């Protein structure tokens, strides 16, 4: 207490403290929120993975009846929705939460309480989607949910209502994350952290948040329009009532294509962090990497109809969008070549994090080059909606996004959980996932060219598809073993003593300049950034410690709050009201939600002060 300067003594406020599980539920700490994002994403990944395995078993042999056609449609729909909205985005947003404030030397995000609300909207929105199972009808019109199939006439069950409302709920959370991190990254960087000194992962987060900001409104509009169609009898997508089937597709893909980059740019960022660290070399072409991210983001809004080449939009539209789609290969190629140039002449250490990051390069190149092939509109008419496309986007989303996320998990696990993951298990995990992935998805290119459409519940013998489907199914189970080893590694490592040093990998960015895990306040003193690779430079050209930008003293922290989880919970209850067509339940819980938001807005949070141990929280 003696350390509190005179001027602060009078404004020391009591704050409510929470312990045990409540300290998590009420947390507004970006590091805890990041952990909860990552753990929830892994939880949902178990569901998405189980759905994929059942799909693979169903396709094991021709005319199989392991599951009914109706169930099959629900399985692949929920697999897609889960992996995109409840796994890929949240796990990356989890890393962004856990790491970006550390990388820019901030104490927390700009709006900590809103950050908690984003998390709970995602968690409850995801559980809400899955609760459709209890109502006997899960979403089953594919993850892009085309009308009129998903309209009330052809999908009378409540499954699509869960899709419309569940994705609106998680989408609100994602939009708030975008606003939160845009403000955080633009306004809360430590002194000296100029934009062109930011680590590439922070750059990728910044650009991703911009993408979310512009891409989520169109999908939200779509979901609201369909909600009006289904709940209140509107006719936006009802053809007989003058609605338009292509309106949904346009709005969906104006969101849907940038969405692909929302889940790949952070993976690019992770690779750009890991490769220099384990090659012991500065990232090659830093400026062009940041520029490439921005160009990809810009172009990603001009390519959406390449998902609609088979819609008969005509040669003008198809030619223009084919060329813009091909152009994306140029900045993407720049990134690949820059990574190769970073490896060239380095000292490469093959830790598991690095192996995952390295595997990203050839796998993403396969996904990228098949993407260029798909961009050739007239040739795409053969690939579109076939297994060739399924192979392509799994090379991008699994070979790219998930390999990047797993690289990040091994790399940042010590920073987030204070323990280094077991390397032997890590190697087994890596090789089984790498082999299983390729065995599962490479044959899909071939079976797609042989004419197998995607999303068919079964097929007849005599098409030459059986063998490739069986190879894929075997691969899926190799993948399963690999992922179970990951789970075992995560659990057993977590049971060990937290003994990771602050900087286990000889890292470059600021997150490694504080302890592992970082203290609640991140840095005892806000760091002063003197160069790119702020920590590395101090280690190799300075005295090994990052200079402080402020005197030591008590640190003002935001209070924990149960308001975010309460708001998210009642909003989901209002969602049930909508699904059940009950204006009373829906209206009541909407009112409760807004009442809580209002109360939260007017309540003043004075926060509280912590006094860091001098010398604590830094190397």
């Amino acid at each position, binding site marked *: 207490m003696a350390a509190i300067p005179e001027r602060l003594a009078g404004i020391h406020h009591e704050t409510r403290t929470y312990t045990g599980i409540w300290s998590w539920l009420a947390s507004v700490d970006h590091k805890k929120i990041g952990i909860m994002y990552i753990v929830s994403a892994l939880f949902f990944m178990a569901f998405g993975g189980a759905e994929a395995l059942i799909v693979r078993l169903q396709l094991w042999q021709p005319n199989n009846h392991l599951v*009914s*056609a*109706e169930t099959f*449609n629900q399985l692949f729909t929920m697999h897609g929705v889960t992996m995109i909205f409840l796994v890929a985005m949240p796990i990356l947003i989890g890393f962004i939460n856990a790491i970006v404030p550390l990388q820019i030397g901030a104490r927390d995000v700009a709006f900590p309480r809103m950050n908690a609300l984003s998390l709970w909207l995602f968690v409850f929105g995801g559980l809400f989607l899955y609760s459709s199972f209890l109502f006997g009808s899960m979403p089953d*019109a*594919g993850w892009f949910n*085309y009308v*009129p*199939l998903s309209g009330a006439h052809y999908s009378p069950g409540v499954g699509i209502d869960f899709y419309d409302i569940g994705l609106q709920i998680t989408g609100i959370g994602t939009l708030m994350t975008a606003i939160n991190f845009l403000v955080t990254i633009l306004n809360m960087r430590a002194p000296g952290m100029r934009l062109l000194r930011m680590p590439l992962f922070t750059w990728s987060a910044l650009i991703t948040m911009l993408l979310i900001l512009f891409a989520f409104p169109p999908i939200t509009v779509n979901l609201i329009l369909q909600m009006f169609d289904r709940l209140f009898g509107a006719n936006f997508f009802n053809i007989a009532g003058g609605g338009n*089937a292509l309106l949904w597709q346009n709005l969906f893909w104006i969101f849907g294509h940038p969405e692909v980059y929302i889940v790949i740019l952070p993976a690019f960022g992770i690779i750009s962090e890991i490769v220099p660290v384990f*090659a012991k*070399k*500065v990232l*090659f*072409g*830093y*400026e062009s990497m940041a520029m490439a991210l921005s160009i990809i983001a810009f172009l990603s809004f001009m390519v959406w109809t390449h998902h609609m080449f088979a*819609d*008969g939009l005509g040669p003008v539209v*198809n*030619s223009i969008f*084919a*060329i813009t789609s091909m*152009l994306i290969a*140029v900045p993407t*190629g*720049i990134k690949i070549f820059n990574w*190769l*140039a970073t*490896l060239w002449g380095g*000292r*490469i*250490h093959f830790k598991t994090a690095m192996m995952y990051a390295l595997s990203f390069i*050839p796998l993403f*190149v396969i996904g990228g*080059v098949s993407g260029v*092939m798909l961009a*050739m*509109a*007239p*040739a795409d*008419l*053969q690939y*579109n*909606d*076939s297994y060739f496309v399924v192979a392509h986007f799994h090379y991008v989303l699994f070979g790219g996004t998930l390999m990047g996320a797993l690289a990040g998990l091994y790399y940042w696990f010590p920073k987030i959980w204070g323990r280094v993951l077991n390397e032997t298990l890590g190697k087994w995990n890596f090789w089984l996932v790498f082999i299983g992935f390729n065995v599962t998805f490479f044959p899909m290119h071939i079976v797609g*060219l*042989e*004419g*197998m*459409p*995607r*999303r*068919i*519940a*079964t097929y007849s013998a*005599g*098409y*030459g598809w059986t063998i490739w489907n069986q190879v894929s199914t075997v691969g899926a189970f190799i993948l399963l073993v690999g992922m179970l080893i990951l789970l075992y590694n995560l659990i057993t490592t977590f049971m060990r003593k937290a003994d990771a040093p602050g900087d286990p990998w000889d890292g470059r960015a600021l997150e490694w300049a504080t302890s592992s895990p970082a203290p609640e306040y991140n840095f005892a003193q806000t760091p002063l950034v003197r160069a790119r690779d702020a920590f590395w430079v101090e280690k*190799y050209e300075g005295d090994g410690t990052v200079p402080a930008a402020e005197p030591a003293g008590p640190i003002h922290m935001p209070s924990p709050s149960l308001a975010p989880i309460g708001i998210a919970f009642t909003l989901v209850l209002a969602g049930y009201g909508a699904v059940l067509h009950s204006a009373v339940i829906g209206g009541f819980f909407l009112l409760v939600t807004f009442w809580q938001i209002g109360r939260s807005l007017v309540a003043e949070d004075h926060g509280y002060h912590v006094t860091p141990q001098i010398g604590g929280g830094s190397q």
Partner: protein
Amino acid sequence: MRWKQRGFRVTLPLLAVGAAVLLSGCGVSKQSALAPVGPVARAQLGMFWESLAIMTGIFVIVVAVFLYSLIRFRARKTDTGLPKQVHGNTTLEIAWTIIPIVLLVFLAIPTVHYAYAFGDVPPNAMKVDVVGHQFWWEFDYPGSGVTTANQVHIPVNTKVDFVLTSADVIHSFWVPRLGGKTDLIPGRVNNLWLESNQTGTFYGQCAQLCGAGHAYMKFTVLVQTQAAYDAWLQSMQHPTVSVTTPLEQAGMKLFSQDCATCHTIGGTAFNGKVGPNLTELMQRPTIAAGTLTNTPANLAQWLHNPPAVKPGALMPNLHLSQTQIQSLVAFLETLK
């Protein structure tokens, strides 16, 4: 350097053999885009090979540099200090920006050329109206009054303009050996022109998720000589139904009560429009949109419980008795 050359000598033939085995060596090409029989599918396959060649080249270069780096620049015990730190190289960076743009130009030219070639329907193309239904295909021959289902007849070496519409949800018309797909979208009319240079049966199926029966929405294209096609069209315009045995007559009576509100049979008074037109049903190789081969036993199975054969089928289980089913099958067998 020697290592790299040796690597190439081994990998290139391996890649070529591998590609050949993977893509064509398996013998079955019933519905394969890799076995084109018409100009559209051939052009698409040409684009596939061209882009695959360029893309494989890029992949091989990237992976060669990648693997070389991993081996050559792996960390060793004897390392001291840091490797040379290189921040960038303008010449290299300009090179790997320009070279991909040049390669893309080679892909963009055929892309735009064929986008227009496939997008513009040849003026003298023969028209066939295709209507997608959950979960079957209706084919109408405008001007002739002929309507059939799930098997479309076209003459060989003739450009055919398939005029695509949908009666319910979005479907996609795809016959890989003739050419790529185009969607059938309610509220829109799309055109897809195709041509076959070979007679025979070619397989197609719906490629856009359309509901529970999506996997069961198949069809065949029967490509015939002009004479055979003309004869078929003639016979479809003047179908005759001759019912002789008491069982067949009983079946026809039952059909008039239970089936005629949905199905049309040319040469009879039955003119329902909800389900597939059954004129000359016995000419078709399959029933239930390619789900079952067209045999009396399979017809009986279908009539016993249609949704059990084809999930989501709109034809309900009519709870027919075995005798009723036998008579209906006997009647349907007369539709030659």
